[in-house]
Structure formats: C-alpha cells, structure tokens
C-alpha cells in the first residue's frame, strides 16, 4: 500500500535505479542514515546501486569501507546501537558469511539481550542468487540461513516498485533487516529461458516508480496473479520465471510473491491454499532445509484438510552452485512444468 505522501511524479526505473532512489530519499530525509560498504562511495557499487550518492550526500554519509565484512557489519551494529541507521552493502550475499558472527550474535541479539535497551536499526543490502554465471561463490541464496537466525527480518523484492518501497520500510524499521536483492533481475525480469533476449524493466508495469518517499510494509505478500487451480509460493527472480511458465501452460495458478520471508504473511498463504487446495513452492536455493521446507510445513499445519495433493517443491539441487551447468541447476521451465503437471494430476 502506498502511503499518503507518495503523490509524486513517477519515473521509469530498473531495480538498481529504484534501490538507488530509496537510499537517496532516505539520505535526504534522515540525517541518521549512512550508506557504507566495499566500493559503494567513489565507485558507486559494483552493480551501481549507490552511483552518485557520495557525490550528492558527501563522504561522511556515503563511504567506502575496507574489504572486511565482519568489520562492516560489526561497525554498523555499533552505529545502530548509538542511534544511526546504517545501510551497509555486502557486495555479494556469498560474502556475508565472514560477517555472520556479527549478524547472528550481535545484530540479531542486541534487542533481546539488552531487554530492548538497545536496538539495531541496520539494513544490510546484498545481491544474491544465480543466473549470471557467478559460480559457487557469487550465486548463492542464503535466505533460509537468515530466517533461521531469529531477530533479523528478511526481505526479497521482485520488481523496481517493490524494491524501493520495501527498502525504505527496511531502513525505517527499528530491527536489523537483511535485504536480499535478486541480481539476475536488476536490469529486467527473467523468464527462465536463458537463451531468449532479456526484456528490460521499462516494458513492465512495476517499473513506474514514484520519485519520492513511499513504503511497502514488511510482512505483506503480493498476489501477482489470481487463480483457482493451485497456489504457487515464490519470491525474487522465481516470481517471474513461474509466471512465464504458468502463462505458457495456461494453468489457472494463483501466484503469491512473498516479498518478506520474515515476518511472513502466513494469512495470505493460508487463505489462498484453502481456496485452491494445492500448493507449489519454488526457490532457487538448495533444497534441504531451504525456506520451502518451512513453507511446506506451515501449509500442512494450517491447510491439511483443504489439501488435495501433497505440497510440491521445485528448488535448486543440494550441490554447490555450479558454473558450467548453471541452467541444469537452476529450477527453470522444465522442472516447473513437470511439477505443475504432477500437482494438478494428483
């Protein structure tokens, strides 16, 4: 939902521009907001997400850090405890692991262990996911590690409009947020067919992004397609992939874009699955202990007597993210079509 102060002009933006705009708006509105990370200042970020921000807002508020992820997150936790709203970038989600100590043991625990005396209003932005031949250290999807921490919110946008509104809400949130940006769709939605030309965001309705401030509340899913035959739960890149396949196969699927994994909009999921009686979960991350396992468990707990078929999962394989066999690993059109056929036949 757009809030009242959103009546500003819209502009066509891709995801990078929308994310940049969110930080620009927040730097403008709140002097406590600082943007930091490897290459984010002078260079403007490896994916250009912070381009121009240092020039506009100065080196005190948008600055380069050394390559030290644990230090970056740790410093940001301390800044947040003192009342700032740091927005550190971790250049790839795969680099978040050196900082996981700070994320788990400090950021996610500070509110609890100080009985809310101190909080950590930090938003860690980080590009994640595959589809760009990044191989095992530049393609991973660590979202279920984040949701497993407890004490950290996990947000994954799937289009420019949502990316900006969710990022603003994340920066304004008083808890630590891990904001995972699906890098495959930075410049355009992905159909799942890697051999087709890339469609730019400008042809997509969600590229009309207000230039000013607006929020999309964390914890609210979006129904991107209404339908009766089954419910598909997806987020990030996979929202677009599954939508392409569903439309090709003319399946009357209801597609829910979760947008926030934690807090999770379980009410929207429950209502949809009770209506359709079937549920397919899709994610790019490895299968075992993936977020799909949590979703499948929640759906059976809440909708068991409405289910007409077992909950199905289409996911990455339980292997490191491959370089040369990327499209075999990626849960693309063939595997999704197979799952759709199976779940509708059961």
């Amino acid at each position, binding site marked *: 939902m757009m809030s009242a102060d959103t009546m500003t002009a819209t502009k066509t933006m891709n995801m990078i521009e929308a994310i940049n705009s969110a930080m620009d708006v927040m730097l403008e509105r709140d002097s406590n907001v600082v943007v930091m990370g490897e290459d984010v200042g002078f260079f403007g970020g490896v994916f250009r997400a912070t381009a121009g921000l240092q020039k506009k807002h100065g080196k005190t508020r948008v600055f380069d850090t050394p390559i030290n992820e644990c230090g970056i997150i740790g410093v940001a*936790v*301390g800044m947040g*405890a*003192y009342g*700032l709203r740091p927005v550190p970038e971790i250049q790839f989600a795969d680099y978040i692991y050196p900082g996981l100590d700070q994320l788990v043991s400090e950021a996610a625990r500070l509110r609890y262990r*100080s*009985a809310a005396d101190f909080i950590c209003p930090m938003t860690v932005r980080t590009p994640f996911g595959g589809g760009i031949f990044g191989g095992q250290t530049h393609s991973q999807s660590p979202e279920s590690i984040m949701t497993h921490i407890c004490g950290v*919110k996990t947000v994954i946008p799937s289009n420019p409009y949502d990316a900006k509104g969710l990022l603003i809400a994340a920066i304004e949130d008083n808890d630590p947020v891990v904001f995972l940006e699906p890098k495959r769709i930075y410049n355009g939605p992905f159909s799942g067919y890697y051999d087709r030309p890339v469609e730019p965001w400008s042809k997509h309705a969600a590229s009309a992004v207000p230039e000013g401030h607006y929020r999309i509340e964390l914890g609210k899913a979006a129904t991107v397609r209404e339908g009766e035959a089954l419910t598909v739960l997806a987020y990030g890149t996979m929202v677009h992939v599954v939508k392409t396949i569903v439309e090709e196969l003319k399946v009357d699927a209801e597609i829910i874009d979760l947008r926030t994994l934690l*807090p999770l909009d379980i009410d929207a999921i429950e209502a949809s699955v009770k209506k359709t009686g079937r549920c397919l979960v899709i994610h790019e991350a490895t299968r075992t202990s993936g977020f799909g396992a949590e979703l499948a468990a929640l759906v059976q707990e809440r909708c068991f007597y409405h289910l007409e078929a077992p909950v199905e999962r289409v996911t990455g394989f339980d292997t490191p993210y491959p370089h040369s066999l990327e499209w075999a690993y990626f849960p693309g059109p063939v595997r999704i079509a197979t799952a759709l056929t199976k779940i509708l036949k059961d």
Partner: protein
Amino acid sequence: MAKAPARASAASKKTASTPSPATNREGPRDPVPYDATPAELEKFYREMLLIRRFEEKAGQLYGLGLIGGFCHLYIGQEAVAVGLQSALDGDKDSVITGYRDHGHMLAYGIDPKVIMAELTGRAAGISRGKGGSMHMFSVEHKFYGGHGIVGAQVSLGTGLAFAHKYRGDGGVAMSYFGDGASNQGQVYESFNMAELWKLPIIFVIENNQYAMGTSVNRSSAEDQLYRRGESFRIPGMQVDGMDVLAVRGAAEAALEWVRAGKGPVLMELKTYRYRGHSMSDPAKYRSREEVQAVRDKSDAIEHLKKLMTDAGIGEDKIKDIDKEIRAIVAESADFAESAPEPELHDLYTDVLVEQY
C-alpha cells in the same frame, strides 16, 4: 607469559607509552601516575573493593547453584576498570566490553542489586534476566554491554566511535577486550577502520595473561600486545594494570590524544585474574604458586591500601569502608536470591519490535 606482572618501582615508570623503535611518529604524551586526593583514593578503594567482594559473593552464589551457566569473575583486575572509567566523561563517553563485564558495570556505580539479579536471571536484573552474566547493558551510563563472542564487541565499539564522530558529540568510545581476543581477525578490521577514519576510540587490551587456559606466549607471535596497532599507525601504551593511579594517569594521556581528534589509541593493561577463566576452570595451566605470588606482591587493592595509609587515611576508616561494602554486597545477594524470575511470556519479548 607465566610470570606475574611485577610492580617494582621501576615497573611503574614503564607505564609510560613505549615509543616504537620502528617509527618516529607522534603519539600520546608519556603518562604520569595520577595525583589523587585522599577523597579520590577512598573512592577508588570503595569501587575496587566492591568489585572484589561482589565477585567473591557471585562465586559463592554460583557454587550454591543460584547463578547458572557461565560466570567470569573480575577478581584481580579491579584497578583496570576503576582507573580507566574514572577518567571518562560519564555524560559523553561510551563503554563496551566482553563477557567479563561485572567489574565494568560496578565501576560505573550501577546498583549492585540489579547486577547480581541479572546474574541470577531474575526479572529485576538490569537486562531483565535476558542477558545474564555476560550480557548486561545500561542506557543511562552509555554502557553498551557485555558481549559473549570473543572480540565481536571491538567492531561494535568502533561503530560507537563512528557515531560519536558523526554526531560531533565529543564522546569517546572505550572498547575493552582481552589478550585472547587480540588474536581475532575482526579486531584488526576494526583497527584499520578506526585509524583510517580517525575515530575517537580507545582500544583497551586487558592482558590478564591467559586466554582461558592458554598463556599469551603460547598463543601470540607478538606478545607485547601494545604493539599490535603499529601496522595501522595506532600508537600503543603499556600500562601497569595493577596500579589504579598508573591506569588513571595513562587513561588521561590517551584521552587527550583521542579527544584532540588524532584517532585511536591502543592501551595494553598488564593485569592478572586470580580465579579461573570461568567457574568451571580446573586451572591446570598455571601453578598455585604463581597465583599466590601475584596476590602477595602485586595485588591492586593491597597496593591502594598502602597509598591510602601514606596519605594519612586511618585504619579505622578503611575498616569502616570494608564493613559498608560487605553490607552492600550482602544486600545485593539477598535481593538477587529473592527477586522473582521473569514471566513465561518474556520468552518471546524483545526479539523483534513486534511479535509475529
């Protein structure tokens, strides 16, 4: 480093920052021992004795099963927290430390009752029983905790310093860690950023000679820990941490440097913990004789008593303080034993802003 920190009079003079032979860089001025008034000596004594008696009581309560889990006592190191924190500006400066945090809280004059009640996990504890021994906080005193992960607080302290500078509030962050933590990678990430950005921070290594059961020499290639900042151009000072006046004097020299906007200082405080690392420490890594030798020759409280006598403070006065402290500690233990435990619903509070 199995030897006790000696306090010959020559050693006291060594509290001066030792200039690095490798460089001629400017550093903080050579510190001089603090010239305390009799009233200040009394105050230091009161605070250090409170820490010692409090910790002894905590050890007893642990033995009785009233304190569970982990409990790291500060006995032996009292002069460090008292000497350093007495030099800070309570309205502006912030402090953060590791898991051996009881002494730092007490040195701030925080009510011992709510500290002891935190140790026993009661709702009346300063962090409502949620933090326990290792994780205690005080907004009022800008005390950013007690942190259980070795070295993690050093990065947080660097963030506090960043925020002081960003706000321009004139505050300095004091970030304590131990000789063990001084081998953690994120400490050096923090050193680099702190000096690069000229942050107002004092890094304090409380070198109590043992990282759990591993002596400094068995764990550290460079065992002169005050030199650990050199490759980041952070000036180092080695200080006799068993002499509260030396500590206070060194803190003032460090603060002058940092408050002048010249960036961080690394202070190594040579000290000694009398008790085990935690309550379950079999102490097989050092001899009884070694511990006893420190108690006999270098004890910080005995040393301070001597200074008080020299300053004309009578035996009776000291005895009165002892009695007063025993009463305060007994009261805190009674409170911590009788205060109620948190309600069951507290299990889910303070995880995130809202409940989901």
